């Protein structure tokens, strides 16, 4: 098997498991809906107030649901010692990492696409002009979250209290992604000119590149046993 095949099989395997169990995506979507509901109660927003905080609410919901998906990504491998089987793959461990990143990214992005119309309807947003740039922001920020999140999902899966430790370790490290995604989304929703929030897109792109490389390298040490 070449490394590329490893990546492809891992993505295929994760998709098939998800299609058969429908556990991850459905729990992510429902959790996000509950988060949105709680937020709209706790802020009691009118349309004007909603414009100010909606980008923040959106990314908090996406990040929290992302953590659910990321946590399941490796904890599902604990059944039947699948993790040991993965560790025995003769190719470089980085291929497993890339496959898992691709699958996690796909799940998170899909959930975001499903949830975004909810935000548009519930908070009465105007998105028609900014939709392409919004998709670009979603793409870059989700890639950043899944690049570093996959590493920490693999790292926390074999320790005690892993459900608690994944967000505790992950959230401080993704502070730049959260700030950049919220600021860029806010700009795009307000219809600001691109030059005003372009730097956040650049920051997201830099973050993605840096942490895909660093996590790819560090993943070797996580799987090393």
């Amino acid at each position, binding site marked *: 098997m070449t490394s590329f095949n490893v990546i492809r099989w891992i993505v295929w395997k994760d998709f098939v498991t998800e299609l058969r169990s429908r556990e991850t995506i459905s729990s992510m979507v429902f959790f996000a809906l509950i988060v949105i509901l709680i937020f709209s109660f706790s802020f009691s927003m009118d349309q004007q107030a909603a414009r100010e905080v909606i980008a923040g609410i959106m990314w908090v919901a996406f990040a929290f649901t992302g953590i659910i998906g990321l946590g399941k990504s490796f904890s599902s491998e604990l059944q039947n010692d699948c993790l040991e089987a993965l560790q025995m793959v003769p190719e470089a461990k980085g291929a497993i990492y890339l496959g898992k990143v691709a699958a996690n990214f796909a799940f998170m992005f899909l959930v975001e696409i499903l949830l975004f119309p909810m935000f548009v309807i519930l908070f009465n947003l105007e998105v028609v002009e900014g939709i392409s740039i919004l998709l670009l922001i979603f793409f870059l920020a989700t890639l950043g979250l899944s690049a*570093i999140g996959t*590493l920490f999902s693999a*790292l926390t899966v*074999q*320790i*005690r*209290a892993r459900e608690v*430790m994944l967000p*505790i*370790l992950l959230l*401080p*490290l993704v*502070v*730049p992604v959260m*700030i*950049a995604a919220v*600021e860029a989304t806010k700009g795009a929703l307000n219809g600001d000119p691109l030059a005003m929030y372009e*730097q*956040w897109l650049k*920051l997201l792109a*830099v*973050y993605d590149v*840096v*942490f895909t490389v*660093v*996590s790819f390298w*560090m993943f070797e*040490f*996580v799987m*090393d046993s």
Partner: protein
Amino acid sequence: MTIHRVIRKVQRFQGWFGSGAALCLGAGLYLGLIGSPADYYQGEVVRIMYIHVPLAHTSLIGYTVLALGSLWYLWKRDPIVDNMCQAVAALSAVFTALALGTGMIWGKPTWDTWWTWDARLTSFTVLLLILVGYLMLRTFVDDPEKEARYGAILAIVGFVDLPIIHFSVEWWRTLHQPQSISMRGVSISSGLLVPLVFMSIGMSLLFSYMLMVRTQLLYLDRLLHAKKGRLLSQFHLSKSDS
């Protein structure tokens, strides 16, 4: 069992670091609290800077040492390097928390608020969160080898992340509101600089001294556990023989 040669070196030299720290900190405190004039703008409050600034510098140096030590550990897998990493992480966390605390005490009379989402304050808080996360992670892993490896990975990723966090927070603040209070532009006079230099050197020496003691402690603890394991297995073997 022989003691590791690094630990023997540490045992020989740590006294010098300890007494050097005591001398520098004593001189710095005397100059800072009694010998130097109060600041024209800030008054007596400025004196807390003699503790705050060295604490902040030292904790950043500590985090750099942690990241370099973690790289070294992943490369050589020497358990004594991991003992050093664990010691330096705990010390950096304490120094970071103290830097934040003294900064808040200084900020109350100067800025008239305990807390503001200033770029440096925010990135220091995130640094503290990463260090506490590192220490928590270590307590949740059962296997010592795995504990060391996972800790090293987190420390390296966090170290790479730190400059990006700082830049993003700085941009975020400057976009929202112009930084209302800035330390820039307040040039420092030599009367204030001399005690600050003494305190900085003293604080670094104190950090090194505490690091040496703590590393030794963790190392001896590991030896003790190994010895205990061996004795227990010998005991069980001798029982099964009879």
